[in-house]
């Protein structure tokens, strides 16, 4: 069952075509690399999936919502089903690791008890329980990334979008982060990693969506 579906999607920005007639589906539990040389194309896809932008033409569907029918008031609910990991992590520097993650639950209005339980569980999943009281500035790059991943996962999303998550990590740190993402993927969460680099074959099963000149060329492993 697709969690994300793009049907004949075109995106134009300032008269320039960014995506041209894109058709693709991403299913529950899939692990997908979105490879593109330009940031604009990848960003356009990521923005479409969180409905920060609507397509110039075509239809974007995410979970139960699609771009033809979604109301503005539905967008927050949709975004709770899509976890985002940014290249610059976008952590709140005046909040601890725990508070950064709990914040994503607090703003959705869930109970305090649930926030506590869920935040501790996700911190344990990303091996950061011992750093829960640290501030982002006290963490390494890899640890910050794990906090960002934890925040993206804490709402039990259908899909996690990660923009160049391992761009600044060494191979060992990359391996550890990928293991966390794969663990979440095994629980049924679709994972999309946007990257500029070509993807090397590794031990994980994956699918590659190659973006070139606004068009997706599908490559499977």
């Amino acid at each position, binding site marked *: 069952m697709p969690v994300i579906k793009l049907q004949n999607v075109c995106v134009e920005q300032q008269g320039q075509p960014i995506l041209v007639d894109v058709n693709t589906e991403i299913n529950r539990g899939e692990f997908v690399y979105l490879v593109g040389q330009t940031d604009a194309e990848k960003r356009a896809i990521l923005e479409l999936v*969180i409905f*920060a932008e609507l397509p110039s033409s075509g239809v974007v569907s995410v979970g139960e919502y699609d771009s033809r029918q979604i109301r503005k*008031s539905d967008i*927050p*609910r*949709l*975004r*709770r089903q899509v976890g*985002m990991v940014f290249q610059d992590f*976008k952590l*709140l520097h005046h909040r601890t690791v725990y508070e950064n993650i709990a*914040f*994503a639950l*607090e*703003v*959705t*209005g*869930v109970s*305090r008890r649930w926030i506590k339980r869920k935040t501790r569980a996700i911190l344990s999943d990303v091996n950061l329980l011992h750093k829960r009281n640290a501030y982002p500035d006290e963490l390494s790059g890899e640890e910050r990334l794990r906090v960002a991943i934890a*925040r993206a996962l804490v*709402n039990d999303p259908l899909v996690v979008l990660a923009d160049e998550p391992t761009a600044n990590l060494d191979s060992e740190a990359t391996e550890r982060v990928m293991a966390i993402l794969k663990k979440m993927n095994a629980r049924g969460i679709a994972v999309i990693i946007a990257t500029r680099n070509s993807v090397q074959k590794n031990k994980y099963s994956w699918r590659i969506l190659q973006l070139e000149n606004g068009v997706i060329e599908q490559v499977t492993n």
Partner: protein
Amino acid sequence: MNLSLVLREAWQGVVRTRISGVISVVTIGASLLVLGFLWQVIESGNALVDRLRARVEIDIYLKDGVSSQRVFALRRTLEARPEVAGIVYVDQDEAAREFQSRFGLGAVDALSRNPLPASLRVRISPGENMPRRARSVARHVTGHNAVEGVNVGEVWADSLEHFIVVITGIGLALGCVLCFACAFAISHATKLMVLAQRDTIGIMRLVGATNMTVWMIFGTGGIIQGSIGGFLAPLMLAYIAPWWAVRVPDLTVTPTIELALCLVALGTVLGAVGSWSSLNRLLREIT
């Protein structure tokens, strides 16, 4: 809606605005202090006018040697008028005693005879336009063959009333300006609060916070500032009230619980209005 989140984030937002937040709160406090002060002065002024009105009297001086029948006839004529609430006859001896108590013993004794005339002291019934009605009674008796002269007395209550009306008008105009200043100060502080937390708002939206949640947090920030300002105003008023009472005892300023609640409520409303005007524009710009 998580109320503790809203209050916590709103408070942190206010704290993070630092100097501008403090300036905003002080502006609101000072503005509401002026409003509360004017309000109290106007209330005291109105009470003073009422007290003076209740004391509006006319002194009708009688000619020397006028017969008691003519005085009685004059008295009956006056009592028939609706403006008259009561009449007291003050004979020459009583007039001398009053004069002496006011200007000192011996002032009349120094003269060979008591020069003060007997009089009828007419109290005007309370109600609207007392000074006008007092003048009407005075006109009626002026020229009467038993009457030497008429003193219309404390008609300056009319002038004081006029003064209070002017002060009320100025107070209302100033109040509008000050309310606008309060709303502007809060609007500005809210803007800084939002801009300082632009990243937080962006993340809130990305993780699925509704617009209502974002609005509540930052709107509550403005409300907190307004209510703190509103709370400060009666405290400052209580501080200056004794100082004022010594200098202007007839126009006292009494910070009552009702006044304090009104000022806090007004500060809260101004906080909500100020932050709303700012948020309405700003939050649309942050996606």
